[in-house]
């Protein structure tokens, strides 16, 4: 799984090249805002850790309030 993630990141160099070339800091920060959580998820997936989705968390909260079918 890590291998696939690395392959993808290598493909992403295509996006990073113009950002670094033209020094677009804003773009870089936004890209990192998605890449860093993505890397965290990648490591979680590689370890086989399953995380509850936010919808499940909100649904359980709604259920505790009695709002459910």
């Amino acid at each position: 799984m890590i291998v696939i993630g690395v392959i993808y990141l290598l493909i992403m160099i295509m996006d990073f090249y113009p950002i670094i070339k033209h020094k677009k800091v804003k773009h870089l920060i936004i890209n990192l805002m998605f890449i860093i959580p993505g890397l965290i998820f990648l490591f979680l997936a590689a370890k086989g850790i399953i995380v509850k989705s936010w919808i499940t968390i909100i649904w359980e909260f709604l259920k505790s309030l009695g709002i459910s079918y």
Partner: protein
Amino acid sequence: MKKIFILVFLLLCSLFLVGCWDAREINTLFIVTGIAIDKSKQEGFFDVSVIGIKTSPSRGGSQSSDDKDKKIVLKTTTRSIRDAFFHLNLNYDRTLYLQHNQIVIFGEDVAKDDLHRHLEFFVRSENSRMETLMLIVEGRADEVFKMDVKQEQNSTIYLFTHIQTISRRVKHYKISVLNFIANLLTEGFHSVIPIFAVNKNDDDDMPINMTGFAVFRNNKMIAKITDLEALGFVLLKGDVKNTNRTIISYDGMVSFDFDDIKTKKEIIYKDNYPIKIKITIEITARVEELLGFEKYSIQDLNRELHNIVQQEIINVATQTFKYFQELKVDVFGIGLSIYQHHPKKWNNLRNDWDNIFASLEVEINPKVVIKDYGQIVSIYNPGGVK
């Protein structure tokens, strides 16, 4: 930069999306065409047999005509179907491939026990197909795989072709796994499955004969119907393209082909409680064979034959209906009809439907049209008085 990306992307597609992990070469597969399940002598275990086609390449100029070369039978004894396939995959050089499985055959003992536990695998597994046909065999199901069939590659392909042929005339002979499961889940309805018997006579090239239907209450076989009741069942179910009946009366013998059998059911209620069922059976009949009846003119013959066939239909259908009432098994969909069209009435009847069905009065109304008498217009009576 764009060209590099396109090149890398195409390389990745050609690497990952052409079935690297899912490659299945034909010489690594055992193509299963039939599965037979019998009760084992060991308590709680089942004998599972699978039959498949040999997929070795043919050599130019020489072909084996020996049937034994074409089929391969694998057997194992396990607690469940999934265990059986796992065991067979472990101990055979090829992987079992179920996507071409035509038929699942159950031995009579297994059918009397519990069919649902075996069907669970066929419903759940991604490798199996729901349109696989089901049938019951008198005695042991694996006897079917020992049959020598001259016409087809193996006995299950023979059986599949056989059922396809007869179901073109009477569709009720074709029950798939999906049909049976749907019937099990349907309220107010019980199922039948065709039952066959292996022909032990070596001189006969018809290796297997259909003997009738196995009647099920939920998952378990409770009775068999043959001959007369099977005809009655077909008449009462309707939606049949062709069947036939030979009737022997005081004046002679007549053989009819019944075409386009349609059935309509009318339920008579009293205080929202069904008390009577009126079944109208519409048949277009053709005279295929006629012996005797010399004393009748053409007009009288027509009337007499009408009377004979109508009376026969009433007798056969009533006898069959009463037989199913004794078994307390509604295979005709009367309960289903109430459930589909009057769900509120059904709510009051569902818990006791089997008893209510058993107490219904039945009235059979045949509507027969004798379409033609074949190629000759009079009675064939060579050497007789004209």
